[in-house]
């Protein structure tokens, strides 16, 4: 059943059973005339409203979505609306990065007695949506052909190759602890000298294979949850350790089970840029590191790769080159200049208007093959075999290969990572077709920082993640200000 063509727009309401649905009833009893666009879905509590329902609605043709719950402190279930407030506010600040106008989504509090207020709310929201007009849809967007190059942010510290890191001491340390451990996760030389692969050290001979340096790009924390309940060691860079902290926080590994080995990290290479620089080659002849550059000889040709130009962007913005904590830390953590630069992927989007962002995403996401490398490389994607993206119950997505499905998955991933993502960038690095999906997670991380006292994931295993808690009076959320 379509909306009244040309007269109505598609507006979906999620109303809690106790207060806001009651207010709509009260408005009805008072014969308070309202526009006819709104279709109400009754839910027990605003806390039941998964932000993904809203994203799904908006991606699939809703022109506006309104969520209403009980006033703070009036929740029939004590705290449902407090959680909803945080999640919905995060969502509201997330939508624009996708290219969806956040004015198309609103959430509010209303009590069962406030029929008149409900009437005003529906009227003003409907008028607002009519003023915005029908929502543009991703499948109709003309893909943005050209992407402006991204400026590299200044580096927070001198980047280097880590050639002087006390690797031998580390190996010794691992050997000492190895007898008590199932295995120790690290890196070894990959299929050629410019690639490393994960290493699972079980016997002392394995330890000799351990390498340290700018090629150690992969985040070994991704393997930890599989070892739950077993004693395991892990060698980490600073960024990897933040993932370990998150896993500890979520009880997916126990502190007493994991032994953390750490060296200070001087940066790792952006392998896509390395690949571009080296071009197509057959054989790596030689790889030499001096303090600040990597010199790679392939097919007899020498290439100099200064770390300052070839390090991953996340290394330039890194504030934690050394592990958050470790059982055997070795070496000194370098001085880091704490400056807050917007990551370039996100800065690129910040500079665009909503239409451009929609066009950008529709252009980028089309080439997604749904291989889920992004998901599986993410150390925080702990659902693994039971991801909602490919389940039938619940059935959030179909197998269709269209833009909305592909983008919806990215929204699922990003929102499920809210307050948990440490920005390790593995999702984007793993993407074989180079879709700059990290920006979505970065926007949420930025929002979480703004809203919840500069909270950044992966620093405190005892912290309560902001989306799993609430304040009765939120300092940074001003949800009552819209009219």
């Amino acid at each position, binding site marked *: *059943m379509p909306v*009244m063509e040309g*007269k*109505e727009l*598609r507006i*979906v309401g999620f109303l809690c*059973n106790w207060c806001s*649905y*009651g207010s*709509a*009833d009260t*408005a*009805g009893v008072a*014969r308070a*005339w309202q*526009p*006819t666009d709104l*279709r*109400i*879905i*009754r839910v*027990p*509590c605003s*806390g*039941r*409203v*998964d932000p993904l*329902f809203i994203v799904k*609605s908006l991606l*699939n*043709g809703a022109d506006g979505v309104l969520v209403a719950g009980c006033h703070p*402190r009036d*929740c*029939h*279930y*004590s*705290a*449902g609306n407090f*959680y909803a407030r945080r999640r919905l506010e995060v969502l509201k600040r997330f939508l624009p990065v996708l290219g969806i106008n956040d004015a198309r989504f609103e959430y509010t509090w209303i009590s069962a007695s406030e029929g008149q207020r409900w*009437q005003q709310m529906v009227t003003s929201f409907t008028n607002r949506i009519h003023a915005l007009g029908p929502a543009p849809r991703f499948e109709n967007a003309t893909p943005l052909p050209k992407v402006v190059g991204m400026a590299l942010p200044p580096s927070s510290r001198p980047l280097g190759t880590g050639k002087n890191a006390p690797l031998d001491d580390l190996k010794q340390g691992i050997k000492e602890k190895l007898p008590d451990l199932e295995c120790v996760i690290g890196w070894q030389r990959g299929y050629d000298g410019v690639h490393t692969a994960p290493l699972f050290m079980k016997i002392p001979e394995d330890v000799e294979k351990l390498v340290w340096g700018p090629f150690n790009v992969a985040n070994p924390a991704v393997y930890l*949850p599989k070892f739950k*309940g077993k004693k395991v060691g892990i060698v980490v860079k600073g960024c990897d350790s933040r993932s370990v902290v998150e896993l500890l926080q*979520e*009880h*997916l590994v126990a502190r007493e089970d994991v032994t953390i080995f750490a060296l200070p990290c001087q940066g790792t290479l952006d392998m896509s840029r390395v690949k571009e620089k080296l071009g197509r080659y057959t054989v790596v002849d030689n790889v030499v590191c001096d303090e600040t550059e990597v010199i790679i000889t392939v097919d007899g040709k020498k290439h100099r790769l200064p770390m300052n130009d070839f390090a991953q962007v996340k290394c330039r913005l890194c504030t934690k080159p050394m592990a958050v904590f470790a059982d055997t830390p070795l070496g000194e953590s370098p001085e880091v200049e704490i400056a807050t630069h917007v990551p370039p992927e996100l800065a690129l989007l910040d500079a665009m208007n909503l239409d451009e962002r929609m066009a950008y995403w529709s252009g980028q996401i089309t080439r997604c093959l749904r291989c889920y490398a992004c998901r599986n490389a993410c150390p925080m994607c*702990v*659902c693994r075999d*039971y*991801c*909602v993206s490919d*389940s039938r*119950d*619940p*059935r*959030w997505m179909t197998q269709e290969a269209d833009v909305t499905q592909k983008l919806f998955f990215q929204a699922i991933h990003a929102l*499920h990572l809210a307050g948990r993502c440490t920005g390790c960038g593995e999702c984007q690095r793993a993407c074989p077709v180079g879709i700059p999906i990290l920006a979505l997670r970065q926007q949420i991380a930025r929002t979480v920082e703004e809203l919840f006292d500069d909270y950044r994931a992966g620093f405190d295993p005892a912290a*309560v993640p902001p989306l*799993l*808690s609430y304040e*009765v009076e939120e300092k940074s959320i001003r949800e009552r200000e819209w009219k």
Partner: protein
Amino acid sequence: MRIGVFICHCGSNIAGTVDCTKVAEIAKKFPDVVYTAEPMYTCAEPGQTAMEDAIHEYRLDGVVVASCSPRMHEATFRRTVERAGLNRYMFEMANIREHVSWIGKEKDANTNKAAELVEIAVAKLRNNRPLTAKTFDVTKKVLIAGGGVAGIQSALDCADGGVPVILVERESTIGGKMAKLDKTFPTVDCSACILGPKMVDVAQHPNITLHAYSEIEDVSGYVGNFSVKIRKLATYVDWEKCTGCGVCSEKCPSKKTPDAFNEFTGTTTAVSISFPQAIPKKAVINARHCRQLTKGKCGVCAKFCPTGAIDYAMQDSIVTEEVGCIIAATGYDLMDWTVYREYGGGAYPDVITSLQYERLLSSSGPTGGHLIRPSDGGEPQNVVFVQCVGSRDKSIGRPQCSAFCCMYTAKQAVLTKEHLPESQSYVFYMDIRAPGKMYDEFTRRAMEEYGVEYIRGRVSAIYPDGLGQYVVMGSDTLLGEPVEIKADLVVLAVGIEAARGTRALAEKLRISYDKSGFFMESHVKLKPVETNTAGVFLAGVCQGAKDIPASVAQGSAAAAKVMALFARDKLENNPQIAFVDLRRCVGCGKCIRCCPFGAIKEKDIRGETKAQVIETVCQGCGLCTSTCPQGAAQLSHATDNQILAEVNALCR
């Protein structure tokens, strides 16, 4: 499925602005819909009978009624379909009256919207599953937290009704704030004289177990089956042996111990019994001031105790009580009035709280009822009462009225005149709130018979005049003039807030509280005693400011609620609760962290940690469902797939 759709005309309520016939025609084309009807009044008996008949005749296994709000008749129709042999959850409603016909005048748009609401309902219903309630036993025992007058009343009423009562009191004696009062308004009768007998009844009632000097440590379980851990604080006196003779207190050399019972207007000994009528009348050692416990030498009380009850090595102990209901009657405390820097912020000895004044007036107080200035012991000539200190003051975030200050201020002014006939009292007030029986008459008497001067206005500052008195600056808003009064003693009617620790208790009980910390009742008007946690009830000021008679009444009301609940042998749960798909669950515990009711616990299943819903505790909010990233936690009757079906019906 075979779905029947009933489009109710509701007389002309719906049919007036919705083309019901057209809606029914459209509904016929929805998937699985095999039958439609348009009853005039579906809720009326013929309507319900027709529905039952249709269910039989067309072998319907799901029903959609498009009519009024489900908040009106969902329960009615669920019973109807159940009578016809369907599970009550194989039913959905489309609200086409309150949400359509009553709020829109355009018939076309209304008809279209009504049909679409039916479509959503059908989409949802196609994903519904039959649900059944479970029954469970009830422990017919009640725990009452707080032994003030409200808690005492609840305890006595329950105990008289045959319900075993566990009464937990944080202080060493029950009696609460009322025990500290000298007299009560509007009759000016002795507080201790009317409360005392009730306290004694508590001590003597065979159905009441009293845990004084105890706190609630932890609450688990659910209505009918709560398990409460009570921390019995160390008294350092074996109460089994203590006879309350008071020898210990007489001999105690630590005589400068601050006297909390007397609101710190005087001092007491480190081992003491708070007041002569205390229940239980047992001594307690104040560990922070006891020489034996702080310095390791003294032992005087142990030496003199005739029964050998002193036990310096005593530790806190935990007792666990299994109860079916809990009444919270935790009362209030005065707010920290020292935020009023302009009143000296606590620096002036003769600017005191009304509760301190109450102790100064009381014959059991530190002065033996002799009204004197704390600073110099002189009799005050001019006494100024300032009302609304910390009440009705948005500037410090306390907009609420403390309800009983107007009355006790009048009482205290009257008592002042009775104690010191030469004195003159002044009352700065905002409005006089005296709505109770004989209340207004009482304040009038204060003014007219006792010559209390009432000045309508707030006090802007109090400061010592350098000559031994205080200047109280204020304004008389009736005259529109500033006023300054020289006072010997200033009594602040300090606003109240929920007793300290209330928020922590609320979290243990999983009930909510308002801005000032008072517990939230289930409904402001219609459920003032219930909370949103089944089996937890409220009595007294912990729910909001009220005076003694109102507290007593609510105490009795809470007792009645408990007894009504205990009248049943078995309780039934609501099947619209969460469940966990164990295969999907990774045991990350996010649902456990969020659940407002503690209704999810970790469970080890074949060596893996999984979440498990405690069916009797879950209230069905669905927060876990929107929290669980794997979609493992699902709320029955509002599963992801059910809501997605509705979303998909609207947006595609």
